[in-house]
């Protein structure tokens, strides 16, 4: 549904996007990841026709955003939610302005406010909103047209833990209805429970684009073992071909064999186990490794 093809964008002497190509598919949540300054926001703005690329194309269902017959019915977007509403205008008026511009009935403003839990704040001016409420208002604006495609730039910023869980459920539900959801973040672990696919960029270039499950499969796997018989267990594991390191707390970190093999060995030798747990490479470690390795 979303196709970015060979996009190049230079701001002055800075090459913000360098031949960037990726897709986001319907019915899936695609996490668009990269450190701050990697070019995520610029990419999304190119996709929405706000920034003109030097080269390349970014299309939705084959058409650039600005040339879609009904853009706001096709794509809902949250960009820069911290701004985005005039501080002197009420939440409801903000949405009604957008309904006017996009040709939606005024009732959609109230419906989406209620849907996003902002009904009580409808007549309050946006200037007094918390960052979390601004995020919700921006989401309400994005959902006005009930669009099949959603593009969200760092939507979790400013949300409390309950809000983040709520957002996760919302995005899963929207993708579950067959919509295309593209959501950017600079923290992989923040979106790991939400996304199906990941697109990682760094310095404006694509690092990797693949299903999250594939990415997780590249994690370095390890087992953490605590045992009063560690002095016997460690040499036995090493003899079996595993790599073993002993931590300050006396626990062993074992790579090269899985937890079942360690458990079986201890059972066979009648050694006592106090802990046997997976200690895989963390998500952030994977992310940082990918970003450092680059394309």
């Amino acid at each position, binding site marked *: 549904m979303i196709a970015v093809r060979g996009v190049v964008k230079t701001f002055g002497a800075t090459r913000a996007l360098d031949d960037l190509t990726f897709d986001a598919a319907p019915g899936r949540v695609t996490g668009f990841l990269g450190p701050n300054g990697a070019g995520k926001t*610029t990419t999304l*703005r190119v996709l*929405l*026709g*706000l*920034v*003109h690329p030097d080269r390349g194309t970014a299309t939705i269902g084959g058409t650039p*955003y*600005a040339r879609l*017959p*009904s*853009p*706001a*019915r096709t794509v809902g*977007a949250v*960009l*820069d939610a*911290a*701004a*985005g*509403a*005039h*501080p*002197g*205008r*009420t939440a409801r*008026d903000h949405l*009604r*302005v*957008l309904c*006017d*511009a*996009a*040709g*939606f*009935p005024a009732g*959609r403003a109230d*419906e*989406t406010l*209620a*849907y*996003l*839990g*902002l009904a*009580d*704040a409808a007549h309050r001016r946006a200037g007094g909103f*918390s960052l*979390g*409420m601004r995020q919700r208002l*921006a989401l309400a*604006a994005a*959902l006005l*047209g*009930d669009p099949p495609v959603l593009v969200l730039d760092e939507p979790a910023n400013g949300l*409390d833990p*309950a*809000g983040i869980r*709520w957002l996760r*459920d919302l995005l899963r*539900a929207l993708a579950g209805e067959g919509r295309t959801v593209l959501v950017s973040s600079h923290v992989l672990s923040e979106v790991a429970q939400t996304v199906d696919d990941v697109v990682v960029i760094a310095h404006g270039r694509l690092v990797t684009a693949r299903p999250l499950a594939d990415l997780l499969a590249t994690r370095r796997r390890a087992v953490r073992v605590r045992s009063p018989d560690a002095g016997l267990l460690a040499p036995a594991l090493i003899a079996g071909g595993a790599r073993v390191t002993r931590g300050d707390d006396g626990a062993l970190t074992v790579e090269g064999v899985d937890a079942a093999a360690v458990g079986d060995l201890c059972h066979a030798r009648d050694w006592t186990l106090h802990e046997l747990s997976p200690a895989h490479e963390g998500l952030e470690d994977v992310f940082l490794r990918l970003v450092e390795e680059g394309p």
Partner: protein
Amino acid sequence: MTATPPAPGRPPEDVPAPAGRGDPPARSRAVRAVRAEVRKLATLRSTLGFAGLAAAYVLVNTVAVLALQGVEEPPVDLTTRDGVRTLLATGAAAYLFATVVGIMSATGEYRHGTITPSLLAQPSRPLLLAAKGVAAALAGLLQGVVGAVVCLGVALPWLALVDHAPVGAGDVARAALGTLAGVALFAVLGAALGALVRNQVVALVAGLVWLVLGEGLLLALVPEVGRWPPSGALAALTGSSPDVLPPVAGALLLAGYALVLLAAAIAVERRRDVT
């Protein structure tokens, strides 16, 4: 957070179905764009606030002319026909506030980041700016009405109390209509300037310095060109000074300035990035 978030699920059912797909007629897109821009102005308290300031400013101007009739050689001598015409045109002083409203309507989009949702709801930048011009003209018209009503509402009864040259019905009509049209066009000029400059403070300073100081200086240095800048065209519309263009020429000149500046803003905006 004010409320417990609702459980996610299907968005509201009675969503406008994709039946409306297909390119809507250009006319309806234009109507929508104008409606959105008018609502933007109508939903901000500052729009009325500036109308209030304009009323107060015009009141001071009008009262000053009338109250100074007692002094020796008043700056505006109401015993002359030109003096009476100048008095009747003091409502046009609202043009400063109309300009400010126009500038703020355009630069506010960039200042508050609303340009992004605005262009997502309706991606055509020429249409957005043209609609902004129309909405600014309407807001300016409000300022002009306020200016004309305050000015004539004070001046006409007060004139009965002082020595003055005869007041022609044509002079009153020209002052009133000229104030409406002229002040409205200044709001369009402001919107176009704001769209070109984008930065609110820079646009306000540039606009007001030009109108208050720049044109005054121009007049002082090269008086013969005084009828040509925007304020000269406004004077032609209202008849506030004797040495001006005919009213229709003034109207065309001022409309020309507004349209050229708006066209320039559109041409520039098409190429710019919204970051």
